[in-house]
């Protein structure tokens, strides 16, 4: 979900995605490379993202991931589930 969310900001490469999540979460979330790449492959398999080779701002060749329409749909549904879950947890915590 986090990876997909990142991709909604525009296509990015693996390093960029990891950096972005790291930055935005104010260092709280650090997505390990060990799980990032398998996760990216899953996105490709499910057709939620596409990949192509491009050039980075520092003029290197890199593989860019782009979210697809199916990916956006998936993200929306995951976000709904997530929000619902968070809300439910919050309720439980508050009631106690």
């Amino acid at each position: 979900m986090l990876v997909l969310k990142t991709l909604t900001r525009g296509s990015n490469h693996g390093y960029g995605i990891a950096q972005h999540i790291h930055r935005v979460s104010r260092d709280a979330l650090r997505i390990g490379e060990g799980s990032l790449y398998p996760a990216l492959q899953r996105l490709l398999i499910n057709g939620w993202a596409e990949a192509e080779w491009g050039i980075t701002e520092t003029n290197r060749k890199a593989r860019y991931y782009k979210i697809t329409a199916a990916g956006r749909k998936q993200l929306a549904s995951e976000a709904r589930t997530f929000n619902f879950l968070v809300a439910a947890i919050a309720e439980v915590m508050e009631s106690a």
Partner: protein
Amino acid sequence: MKLWNRLRYWTRWPRPDNDLAEEIRLHREMLEEQFVREGMSRPQARTAAAREFGNATAVAEKSREQWNLQWLASALKDLRFAWRLARRQPLLSAAAVLTIAFGVGANTAIVSVLETVLLNPLGLRHADRVVVARVRIDKIHMRHVQTSGVEFREIQSMTDAFSAVGAEEGRYWTSQVSGEPTRLLGQGVTPEFFRVFGVYPALGRFFAPEDRQSVVLSYRLWKSQFGGDPSAIGRTLVLDGTPYRIVGVAPADFRFPLANQVWTSLYLDPERLHRRGYNMSLWVFARLKDGVSVAQAADRVNRYMTGLNMEAEGYAGYGYGVEIDPFSDYVAGNLQRPLWLLSAGALVVLLIGCANVAGLLLTRAAGRRREIAIRISLGASRAQILRQLLIESLLLAGLGGVAGLLMAAVALRAATKLSVAGGDWITLVTLDHRMMLYGFGLALASGLLFGLAPALQLLRESSASSLTRGERRRFQDVFVTAEVAGAFVLVVVTVLLLRSLWAVESVRPGFDDAHLTTAYLMKPANDAGFFNRLRDELRAGPGIESAALTYPVPFGGGELTSTFNIRNRERRPDEPEWHGEAYIVSPEYLHTMRIPLLQGRNLEDRDTAESPLVCLVDSQVAQRFFPDQDLIGQEIGMYKGWARIVGIVGTIRGSTLEDGSRPVVYYSRAQVPFFPEVGIVVRSSVPAVGIIRQAVRRANASVPIFDIESMEDRIGESLGIRRLLAVLLSVFGSIALVLAAVGLYGVAAHVVAERTNEIGVRMALGARPGQILTQFATQGLRAGIIGLACGLAAAAWAQQWVTNMLFKVRPFDPTTFLAAAAGVMGLLLVAVWWPARRASRIDPQRALHYE
């Protein structure tokens, strides 16, 4: 979607693996850059990046795994395992593969034939929407005959049921082809004929209503005669001396009728369109309107016919009707039922084969219980085990399928060379990709079928704590029962047909068919002396014993049938109209054919066009109409008014050996002129084909000669389908029998092997070998006997499919049933005898030590 993405991944080149490695390398480099920016030295940064990233190989590995088609990979692993297993038991595997191969081969070959004839007749597009309209006249037992112009007009007017109606009339002409006088075969067709079959001209156009003396060429004739030159359109083709304008060329794939070379426009004059029963020579084909079924169309025509005032047309009480049938009926004709019978037989063989292989695998399964149990206890899921077992059987089935397709290809190559009366379409039969797909699918389906039962059984046995040996036995018994029942049905049907074939083959046609050569020629126009010259030329030929002219040639495919009357004799009101066959012959005919003259005199040269009309009749006429009266001098009316009977000759069978019930009347060619086609029969001590050709050429070089064949071959063709059916069913039946016996043997042998111990104990305790033998023999036979009983019932039911192919054998023929039952029983006895004897010879000592 997921599967598709995965498949794409696996089929891409260069492998995406490289992408991944490159990507990871990049990532590490970027990390390194970052650390350098943050102030580390380059080597430090590199180490830090490496630490940060972790094990790159592991990451790549894990990422790659996401793509894996896990089931495919493990299926391949299972396949390799299955292959090793199959090779370890080569005999069993070969037996299974061969069994399936034969079943699949036979089915594929026969379905290919069915496809060409019944399912997709002659490869014509949308022929399933085409019907044929044929006349039936119940009173004289006529069915499926051509119509007169009236019925064509009537059906054409039923626009609510048919969208196009065409009529066709067989034609032949003499024409010059490649400088040789040749008989061209063709049809006169009405303008809509081609529309019925939905074909468009390859070149030019088809007929317009106002066309007269126009001709459409077949693709083949256009290629051979005009070299495929488009400028052939507008040129002329001379048929019987009359020029016809070429207006079009039919497409290459329009092969109906098969040997057709040209089509001419058919004009039906008003008399033909309004006199019912007049000149009944039209085949009427119609295309069903969208949404109209064959049954609905038949009903529509039937209602119209019954509403007609037949009395006014002179057909009251004739039972005159028009039947509508699918086009495939017309193509297959009498061969339809034999073909279905063969396909049913092939299916039975395949099913028996499946049961047999299932039984074999079941036996093998017994020895694998341990292996499976160990695998399950090591954590293999039941689904994995099931998959592995099914892949084993699918491998056998797949190999069987490939071998079966090869067999089918060989069989069809042989079949297309067969000559079966009414089966010239057989040359069109091919094993195309759809049929190969069907055959392979059939093989895999049977693999599932024979693999599922043993697999499930094995799983159950391996997971259950107690061994359900009895249950397995029950499975095996069911298979053996089914095999024996199926084999018995096939044997009964085969024996019934074989006996019929023998009965037919032993029928003598009433003439001496050895050393007879026959041929047809076209009567030349304006050549009065031709036949006399031809007679003299033939007589002078070396080795020619005698020669005669006749129409038709017996077993030549055509016959002259007609109703007849006898002077001073009235038909009983309830009696069907008298119907007979006529031959127009030269006086030498009786001598050449060796048909005995029983009474009176032969036709002679003094019977001329000017002298009174005379005829010969066969002894059937004498027995039926004049049992105790002198027939000579009586008068019979068939062609050209009353003819005086001058002689009685022996009865012959002229079209089929089976049916010789129709009276035959012989006229002299001098008194009843020949039709355009004339037959020659020559008795000779040497091969006469060349002599006949030469004699005809010498008598008149412009006369085409065709259809040269020995009389024995002609008779053989009339028996062709019977022989073919008998041979193929015998093969099917024998294989089914062997399979059933092997199946029974396998089970019995297995039982004995499994119980060696127990037998040893019993022997040690004093059981006599005889007791053991009887016990195991009866036990083994039980399934066989139940199968035989089921087979009896099934055969009694199934024989209704062959009753109309039987000849001099009654359907519930006790001899056949008893003989078949005894034969099958004997084979089963042999099958259980060996294992039972082995049981009775078990040495108690060794059996007990064995454990």
